[in-house]
Each structure stands twice: as structure tokens, then as C-alpha cells.
């Protein structure tokens, strides 16, 4: 019996003790407006994977948005209010997304939320977001569940898989002057990877070509099987979906087999680490498509401001990573949206302003970011990027507008 009995007294006492113990640390619960807008600051939420399997890119994105907000706050904030980011770590666990969303809705209310890089979690939250009062502005990934049909509560902040596939296939088909491109898509054997392979296939078919999907494990240590598959199907070029490891493994194995086939990666893996860990002759065959301009590519006004802040806040090593740029651009999107919603901003006013259409000028850091009442995906244009090993800088080709011809 003793093993079942639980002494109620000590447990209740412990709980009471914890509650009392916490109270002196807590702020006086004087004002707590439901919208996260206070006299001197505004709370804004971020939900991202900061210590889970995708933190390598999502934590860098989070550093980007933090730095932009810090720059704005150092300059006095918006309409006299500083922006305070409440960052929730979701460890790529959908139930933590749900907890974080509820928390930012009511517990520690925020004006709006950015990030949400877990696609399955976003779909799981889609009905909650649509029914709710907190807008999601500037997401790291965008799923159909929240954009078709568009809802006034959701605004994307990253180019989609479909556009990445279309621009990548289109640009390489044109560059290699192919009549009917034959493509191999090497993709992670996850839900997202399968989806990307399907988009590449559709894009190849539109150019009269064909594609073959070759899966790879998320934490593979070798890509021999994939390269043998590539050798067998003799594609004109290869598309890659994955984490930074995927193109590294693939390009190294291809080099060992002496395969000169060009490879293009999706935006998320346009990171310096891929180029740094490949020898120049292999790395020069790798390009990626992105709607964000990686640091060091050009000297646009936006680039200068970003570089200056990144160096100042100790993130020089991150600024060449397009994930950092993406976070930085969303920081600008958020602050300009809050400013435009007026000095007495509320969730309702922010949503009303956004749903009428809104756009920002990132001064060369990205493709145009704009929302119309019908289209809330935000960023749709991309262009190909490569890396120049001689100058150790990224190189962009063409303009973002040229990509229009590849997209439907």
C-alpha cells in the first residue's frame, strides 16, 4: 500500500512553496494589455527551433531578426516604444509550437508572431491561427493550409518550395541551353523533401523534360548510393533539398566520381559552410536559388546597413548566411508594419492595415516583399547565386525581376 499512497500534504506544500517562491521574482502584475502593447515597449513573438535538429539554420534566422530589432531599439524604437522580442524555442516539436502559440496569445501576449519554421506544426496550428486574433507576420516556411485561401491572420516571409523549384529548373535550363531538361532531385526522405521533388518534377515537365527523385537520409554519412543513381540516369543537372550536410556529402561524392554535373540547392542551403567545406573545383559547380541576397554579394544600401550591424553585434560569421539575411529582412518587415499601423497600435489595427496590402523596400537585400489582399505569400521572386572562391564572395546573377519568366 505504501507504494501507492502519496502524501498529499507535502505535494501541496511544495506547490504552494513554488508559487510563493516565484512571486518576489515576478513583476508586479500592474498592467498587462492583451495585445502586448505597453507604454514604453511592444512585445513581439518569435517561435523557432533553437536547440533541435533544424537549429543550424533557424537559430541563425533568429539572430538576424534580433539584430534588426536591436538596431531599431538602439535608435529609439518605434513611436517611442522599444520592440521586445519574446523568443520561444520549439525544438522542432509540434506540441511545443502549440504551447508557444497559446503562450504568446494569452499568457505573455504579443502583438504578432514571426518565424514558425516547422511546416507540420504550422499546418496543425492553421485553424487556430485563422480563428485567432494574433497575426503571424514573416514566417520562415509557408504552407498551403494558411495561404489557400489567404487569411488576414497570416503573412509569409520566405520564398516557397514551388518557386525555388521553378526558378532553379528554369535558370539552369536556360543557362545550359537545354531543350528538354533531365533532372535528378536528391532530397531528404521526409515529407518536405518529397514535396520539393514533386515541384521540381512539375517544373521540369513544364520545360518538356523529366525528373527522377533520389532520397537520402537526414543524417547520412555517405552519398555513394545517390551518386551511383545519378551516374545511371545521366541528368543534365541535379536539384538538392536538405540541410547543409546534404550538398556537402553529395558534391564530395560527385567529385570523387569525376561527375561534372551542375547542382543547384534550395534557398535554405545557400550557406557559406557548404562552399567552405568543398574544394573550389567542386564548389564552383554548386549554385543555389534564393529570394534573399547573402552578405557580401554587392554593396547595396541594405547590405551596408546589415553588415555594419552584424559586425557591431558580434555576428560577422553569420551575415553571409541567407538565413541571417532572411531574419534581418523580417525584422524590417515587422518594425515597418508596426510603425505604419500607427502610434496606438493594436492587433486589430495591425491586421486591418496588413490585409489591405503592404510592402517594404529592403534596399537590395531581397526580392520585393509585398502583400496584396489576394496574396499573402509575400516573397515570390528568386535568383541564382554562386560563390567566387578567388574573392570569397557570393555572386548573384541577373535581377530578381528576371525570375518572373520562370514562374507560372
Amino acid at each position, binding site marked *: 500500500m505504501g507504494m501507492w499512497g502519496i502524501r498529499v500534504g507535502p505535494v501541496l506544500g511544495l506547490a504552494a512553496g513554488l508559487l510563493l517562491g516565484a512571486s518576489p521574482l515576478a513583476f508586479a502584475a500592474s498592467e498587462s494589455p492583451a495585445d502586448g502593447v505597453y507604454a514604453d515597449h511592444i512585445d513581439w513573438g518569435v517561435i523557432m527551433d*533553437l*536547440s533541435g*535538429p533544424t*537549429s*543550424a539554420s533557424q*537559430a*541563425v534566422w533568429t539572430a538576424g531578426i534580433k539584430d534588426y530589432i536591436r538596431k531599431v531599439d538602439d535608435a529609439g524604437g518605434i513611436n517611442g516604444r522599444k520592440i521586445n522580442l519574446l523568443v520561444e524555442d520549439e525544438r522542432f516539436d509540434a506540441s511545443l509550437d502549440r504551447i508557444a502559440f497559446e503562450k504568446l496569445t494569452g499568457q505573455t501576449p504579443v502583438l504578432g508572431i514571426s518565424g514558425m519554421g516547422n511546416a507540420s506544426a504550422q499546418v496543425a496550428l492553421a485553424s487556430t491561427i485563422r480563428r485567432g486574433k494574433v497575426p503571424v507576420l514573416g514566417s520562415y516556411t509557408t504552407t498551403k493550409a494558411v495561404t489557400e485561401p489567404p487569411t488576414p491572420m497570416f503573412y509569409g516571409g520566405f520564398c516557397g518550395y514551388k518557386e525555388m523549384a521553378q526558378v532553379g529548373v528554369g535558370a539552369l535550363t536556360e543557362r545550359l541551353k537545354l531543350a528538354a531538361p533531365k533532372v535528378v532531385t536528391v532530397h531528404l*526522405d521526409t515529407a518536405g523533401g518529397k514535396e520539393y521533388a514533386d515541384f521540381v518534377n512539375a517544373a521540369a515537365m513544364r520545360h518538356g523534360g523529366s525528373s527522377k527523385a533520389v*532520397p*537520402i*537520409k*537526414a*543524417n*547520412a*554519412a*555517405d552519398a*555513394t*548510393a*545517390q551518386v*551511383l*543513381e545519378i551516374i*545511371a540516369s545521366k541528368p543534365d543537372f541535379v536539384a538538392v533539398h536538405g*540541410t*547543409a*550536410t546534404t550538398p*556537402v*556529402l553529395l558534391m*564530395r561524392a560527385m*567529385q*570523387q*566520381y569525376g561527375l561534372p554535373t551542375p547542382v543547384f540547392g534550395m534557398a535554405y542551403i545557400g*550557406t557559406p*559552410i557548404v562552399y*567552405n*567545406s568543398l*574544394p573550389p573545383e567542386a564548389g564552383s559547380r554548386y549554385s543555389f536559388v534564393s529570394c534573399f541576397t547573402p552578405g557580401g554579394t554587392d554593396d547595396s544600401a541594405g547590405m551596408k546597413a546589415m553588415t555594419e550591424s552584424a559586425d557591431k553585434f558580434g555576428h560577422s*560569421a*553569420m551575415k553571409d*548566411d541567407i538565413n541571417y539575411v532572411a531574419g534581418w529582412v523580417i525584422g524590417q518587415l515587422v518594425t515597418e508594419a508596426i510603425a505604419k499601423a500607427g502610434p496606438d497600435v493594436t492587433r486589430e489595427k495591425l491586421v486591418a492595415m496588413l490585409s489591405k496590402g503592404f510592402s517594404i523596400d529592403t534596399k537590395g537585400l531581397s526580392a520585393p516583399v509585398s502583400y496584396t489582399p489576394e496574396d499573402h505569400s509575400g516573397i515570390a521572386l528568386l535568383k541564382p547565386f554562386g560563390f567566387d572562391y578567388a574573392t570569397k564572395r557570393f555572386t548573384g546573377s541577373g535581377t530578381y525581376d528576371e525570375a518572373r519568366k520562370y514562374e507560372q
Partner: protein
Amino acid sequence: MLPQVLFSGLALGSIYGLVALGFALVFKATDVLNFAQGMFVVVGAFLAVTAGTQLHLPFALTLMFIVVAAALIGAAIQALLIRPLTGRSMLSIIMVTIALSIVLRALIEIIFGPQPRALTTPMPTGVFIVEGVRISQLHMLAAGVSWLCLGLFALFFRFTTFGLQMRATANGHEAALVSGINVDFVNRVAWAIGSVLAAIGGLFLAQLQLASTELEGIGLLALPAVVIGGLQSIPGAIIGGLLVGLIEQLASSYVSPRSADIFVYTLLLLVLMVRPWGLFGQRELGRV
């Protein structure tokens, strides 16, 4: 295509075998299933980044740095965490190693930041072409070093007094204690060796791909490898590692990469049902 796949499978399998050997040694000595072995692989990868990429040590010194540091970490963990838990239930100790891997992961991310690191070492990256089969020099080196380590440990266990003491301890703690062996010291050395073997595996895995905390998952493949080979058996761990590597490459090439794990775990289940003591283990505990 087949010889190519077989070769890469054996090369990868050698690395798994190395990590698995460390796992088996720790289990033999202290009866602990070390779920942090995967994180020890990551620790090895980042030790290599520290020595090679950040301190720019020459390769020989880098290797020494990894071996010494990993041995110290392994011994410290045994002294601080495992020794106080002697005699506790198997699950509590497994749980401590799981919590340990949470702590190690957090520490590594605090020190090195969220982005993966590229490892720059003078290890060869070219290929030999033998009869149309391309043999990656890095794979060769990884397999070579793994086999060298395995050989050294075999000699160590067979011919040195300390190796004999370790074997004696593994066979029975009480008997070893009675014959005057410092069992605690032997256990500490077992943890140190286990950690070093994982770290060397980490060095090669980081060179094959990138140094990141995601290498943990690859390191944990040592668990099925060890059980398939036989938890109590040193050669079994190595053969188990090779088998896992082969199955993985064959399944990735001829079925699908996602099925690779399933083949490995189905084999594990079969082995458990038919020969629970593993392919090379001795028939003893664990059967009803």
C-alpha cells in the same frame, strides 16, 4: 555498382564498428548502456574542430589532442556520474546517460554556436581507381585507422597485464575485487577508451560530412551494431558495425534510404528472437 556499394558499406561500417567497440567495452566493464555514446562522437568532432581549425595544430598533434581530451572526458564522466550510481537499476543509469547527452549538446552549442563547422585536416580526399571501382582515399584511411585501433586493442587485451585485468573485471566484479584488481580504476579506463574510440569515429564522420550535433544520430547506430554482434563480445561489436554499414549502403542503393533503418532494426529484432546473445556473444544471460 555492387562492389562500389560494398566497399563504401565496409568503410562506413568500420567507423560504426569503432564507435560500437567503445560502446561494448563500456558495457562489458560497467554494465552500462551508454546512450551518450552518440554525443561522444559529436564531442570528438568538435575536439577536432578546436585543435585543427581553431588552434591550427598539425595533424599529429590534433590526433593526440583528441585522444587525450576524449580520454579525460570519459574518465571524468565515469568518476562523477557513473561511479556514484553503482548498483542502481539499469534504467536509472541509462537515464543519466540520456541526461548527460542533453547537457553535452547544450555545452557544445553554447561554445561553438548553432552553425555546423567544416573540418579542415590534411586527410586525403582523392580516389584510387582499381578495376573500375572507385575507392575513396578518405574511406580507406577511415577503415585503415579503425582496423588499426581494433588491432591495437585486441593486442592490448590479450597481451598486457592491464588488458587481462580488464577482461577479468568484465567476467566478474567480485572475483576481480577478491584478486586485488582495482575495479574502479579499470572501469575508469574502460570509459576513457570508450570515449576515445567514439571521438576518433567523430573525427572521421566530421571529415566525411560536417561537425554538428546532428552526428549524434549516426553515432547511435552503434547500439544496434553492438547488439547484433553480441553485447558481450569485442569481435562481435566490430562485425556488427560492419554489418550495419553494409546493410545501410545496400538498402540505400537497392531499396530506399528510409528503409535502411528498418532493415537494421528488423535484423536486430530477429537476432534478439533467435540468438539473443548476439551473433558472437556467449550464450548466457537474458534468456527466459
